[in-house]
């Protein structure tokens, strides 16, 4: 495929096809199939232990699949003589030796892929580590290690980038910076695949979501589609008489549950209908707001389903 396309026109895609990985009896990745496309940020979501890291390692050829395939631009990544030029990856901020300087770490990586040495200074500047480059990695904070790992991923100017939980240990400024970086890398036409176990980290970053639970695919759709599959509309009501309103809402076919902040969360009725009912029963309302289900709630609901479904099975 690559040969038939002119250089520079290659569409770098990650293709995971019927991928399964078992460790003894434990199934970490279970017949997973999805495609990650260029030009957008794809979030890779799932609870802890869902198989996200294993999937990324399978894509990189660090683990061998039990069955199925994972390819990058149509070829198994393991066939690439110079990996950094095809896929840049940050798997774990700990995957470096504390005894070396950040600069030496990048220099060895650059040399192995014959990447010009000036790229090292470029990527160090890109991640904001110019001044710390000569220090030993052992003295870095987790956030600095994340930045160095990102610098290593950018070193080969690759068309495909994988990041496993990249926001761990970053300060708020770092989180903003990294979101901007992901958006820019995607805008440059690269394939950006970012894993997280927190939906809210993806809410402002990802265009597309691949959601897995217990190694199985739960959703592969746009952020908007995923959010709309949540529990539907909710109405937040702050009232002086929650007991009466709850009874009235129940009688009208809806349901009201107390929220942690003392308000009621009503489902099954529109805000207008709740307002009418309150007026009819002379209940004082202080606030009446329509809320779409949050992405976090949609995520939890859907991954919880997967977990329940599999609870009885031997892992």
């Amino acid at each position: 495929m690559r040969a038939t396309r002119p250089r520079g026109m290659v569409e770098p895609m990650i293709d995971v096809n019927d991928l399964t990985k078992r460790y003894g009896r434990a199934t970490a990745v279970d017949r997973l199939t999805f495609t990650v496309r260029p030009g957008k940020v794809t979030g890779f979501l799932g609870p802890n232990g869902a198989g996200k890291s294993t999937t990324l390692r399978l894509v990189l050829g660090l683990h061998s699949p039990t069955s199925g395939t994972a390819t990058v631009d149509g070829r198994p990544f393991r066939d690439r003589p110079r990996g950094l030029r095809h896929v840049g990856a940050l798997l774990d901020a700990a995957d470096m030796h504390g005894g070396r300087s950040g600069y030496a770490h990048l220099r060895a990586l650059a040399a192995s892929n014959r990447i010009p040495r000036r790229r090292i200074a470029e990527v160090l500047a890109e991640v904001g580590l110019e001044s710390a480059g000569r220090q030993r990695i052992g003295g870095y904070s987790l956030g600095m290690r994340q930045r160095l790992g990102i610098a290593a991923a950018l070193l080969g100017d690759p068309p495909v980038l994988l990041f496993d939980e990249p926001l761990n240990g970053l300060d708020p400024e770092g989180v903003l910076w990294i979101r901007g970086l992901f958006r820019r890398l995607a805008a440059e036409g690269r394939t950006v695949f970012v894993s997280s176990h927190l939906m809210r980290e993806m809410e402002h970053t990802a265009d597309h979501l691949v959601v897995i639970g217990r190694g199985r695919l739960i959703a592969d759709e746009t952020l908007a589609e995923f959010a709309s599959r949540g529990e539907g509309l909710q109405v937040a009501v702050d009232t002086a008489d929650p007991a009466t309103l709850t009874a009235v809402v129940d009688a009208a076919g809806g349901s009201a549950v107390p929220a942690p902040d003392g308000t009621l969360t009503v489902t099954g009725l529109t805000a207008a209908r709740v307002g009418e009912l309150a007026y009819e029963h002379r209940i004082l309302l202080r606030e009446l707001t329509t809320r779409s289900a949050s992405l976090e709630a949609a995520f939890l609901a859907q991954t919880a389903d997967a977990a329940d479904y599999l609870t009885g099975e031997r892992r």
Partner: protein
Amino acid sequence: MTTTADREIDAEPAARFTDLLAAESIKFVSLRSTRWGVLLSALVVIAMNANAAFSDYRNWPTYNPQIRASFVPDWAVSDAFSAGAAMVLILAAGTIGALAIVSDYASGLARTTFAAVPARSSVVLAKATVLAGVLLAFGVVVAGGSFVASQGILAGRGINVTLADPGVLRGVVASALLAPVCGLAGLAIGAVIRYTAGSIVTTVALLLLFPALLEDRRYLTAVILHAQPYGSWGALHGLDTQHLSPYPATTVGSWLGYGIWALASVVVAALVVRRRDL
């Protein structure tokens, strides 16, 4: 992320072994602990041999005629590289070799390295080449330095040997080569075990403890001993002009022992990393 960088990188040819050698060299020399380990163990080994020679220099007047008669060349040669110094050299080289790969695995750097260069065996071959090169230089400096220091001291009593004497040069070369052979063995053990403590304990047990337990008075154990790096070194380095050993090893067999250990170690290390999940 400039487009010029993009084009420049794209235009590069396929992976070359020299690139991997450069990368592994950078990794080797950029660790402060490795640099100190190499330097300090070199000094310790040379100091041990110089001290052995100095003891003989000092005690010479007290030696009986029998010892004096056999001192040159047997004793003088053993001062050039004592058995104790050889053990320290084995310990140092084996540990440096094991750590050369275990430090990658233990820190997680192996994942980063193999994600950058998926051809794992090539990476390990490059690592073995760099390690063997560094330890060969180390061995030459240590064996050469020990020879010059010890024989310089013994020359004060006129009881030294020179490289022109039969078997002496062979001994110095054997001492120098002991370092890369044991370093590669350590590398293989590290590649198989992958954990720091286990790798070092196994390296010490296999390269030092095991040969120390073998008796050279019985044929079978003598043969097994001669097949170890330490035993091969002993046979190549010691002159035994008095024929004290009942089952002497052949010179060819001992060189072969070195070669087989080095080659087998490289093959094991290169193969064992191929299919492992990490």
